[in-house]
């Protein structure tokens, strides 16, 4: 019993020391003009073929996310290729086996017998969106909080839907739009709105998290911004990011399955 009480006392003392230090440090720092930093920042500007092109923080975080994904893929691929049948897989390989199995089950549950054709693409998009969304935990500006990135993902889904629809249904893919002739404008608008709503959903969710964290870091006094935002990061980055990556993949699968039939 005494040992437990001692431990609690020690933890409390450490927390008190950290709090006192935070207050002292915040007193030492002069009052600077605080600013909420959630906008895309311009890093470099150059001219190419008569057009001004901008390199922004989005490009930097996109590059970092892509490099991390590629490095992980190469490492896991080498480890899996070298493995014997009797060898027990390590932590990393285990995690990725779990992830691949979960993605396989998810795609098979929604797409049925077409799962084999789409699981690679869906798993890729899932990993990319997930790593982009949670990259703000490491202090990057999430690339999916830039409409250019999410619109590209939405357009890929749009073309996937219609190419697969034409493959599966032929000419009736287009004629079914005009089936009740009175409803044809609504049908056509509905088809155009699909990539827009998909991309705006991902963009808006991630951007709202970024704006909230930017407001908290930029406008709240320094002692409160040490430690406490961790809880908010769990909600705005981890929870929201995972849910949105899942939803994006799920909706992509639902729309494609709607066109090619189960």
């Amino acid at each position, binding site marked *: 019993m005494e040992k437990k009480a001692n431990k609690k006392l020690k933890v409390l003392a450490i927390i008190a020391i950290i709090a006192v230090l935070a207050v002292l440090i915040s007193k030492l720092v002069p009052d600077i003009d605080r600013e909420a930093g959630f906008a895309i920042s311009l890093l470099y500007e150059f001219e190419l073929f008569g057009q001004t092109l901008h390199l922004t923080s989005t490009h930097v975080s996109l590059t970092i996310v892509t490099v991390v994904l590629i490095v992980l893929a190469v490492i896991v691929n080498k480890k899996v290729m070298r493995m014997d049948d009797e060898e027990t897989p390590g932590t990393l390989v285990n995690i990725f086996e779990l992830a691949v199995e979960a993605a396989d089950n998810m795609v098979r549950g929604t797409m049925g017998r077409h799962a084999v054709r789409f699981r690679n693409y869906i798993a890729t998009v899932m990993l990319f969106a997930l790593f982009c969304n949670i990259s703000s935990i490491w202090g990057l500006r999430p690339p999916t909080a830039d409409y250019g990135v999410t619109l590209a993902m939405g357009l890929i889904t749009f073309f996937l839907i219609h190419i697969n629809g034409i493959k599966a249904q032929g000419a009736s893919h287009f004629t079914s739009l005009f089936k009740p002739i009175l409803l044809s404008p609504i049908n056509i608008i509905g088809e155009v709105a699909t990539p827009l709503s998909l991309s705006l959903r991902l*963009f808006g*969710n991630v951007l709202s998290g970024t704006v909230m964290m930017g407001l908290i870091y930029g406008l709240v006094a320094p002692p409160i911004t040490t430690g406490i935002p961790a809880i908010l990061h769990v909600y705005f980055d981890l929870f929201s990011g995972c849910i949105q990556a899942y939803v994006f993949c799920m*909706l992509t699968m639902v729309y494609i399955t709607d066109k090619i039939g189960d």
Partner: protein
Amino acid sequence: MNQVTGQDFINAMSAVGAGIAMIAGIGPGIGQGYAAGQAAAAVGRNPGAKSDITSTMLLGQAVAETTGLYGFAVAIILMFVKPFK
């Protein structure tokens, strides 16, 4: 007293408009709460189907959230992109 220029008025009205646009958050709030309540009731009736119910609920909630996000996008555009100059 300084003179209020036209640009000042436009900036102020943009901020007011951004605030009004966020009223759109009411709808998704009601919708998501209703979905979560129904999901809780469903889990109470059939605890074995908890994972299926959760994934269906999250998907429906994410779709219901879209209208609120349109309002958020309009508010962000009014505040930071400033289309009226």
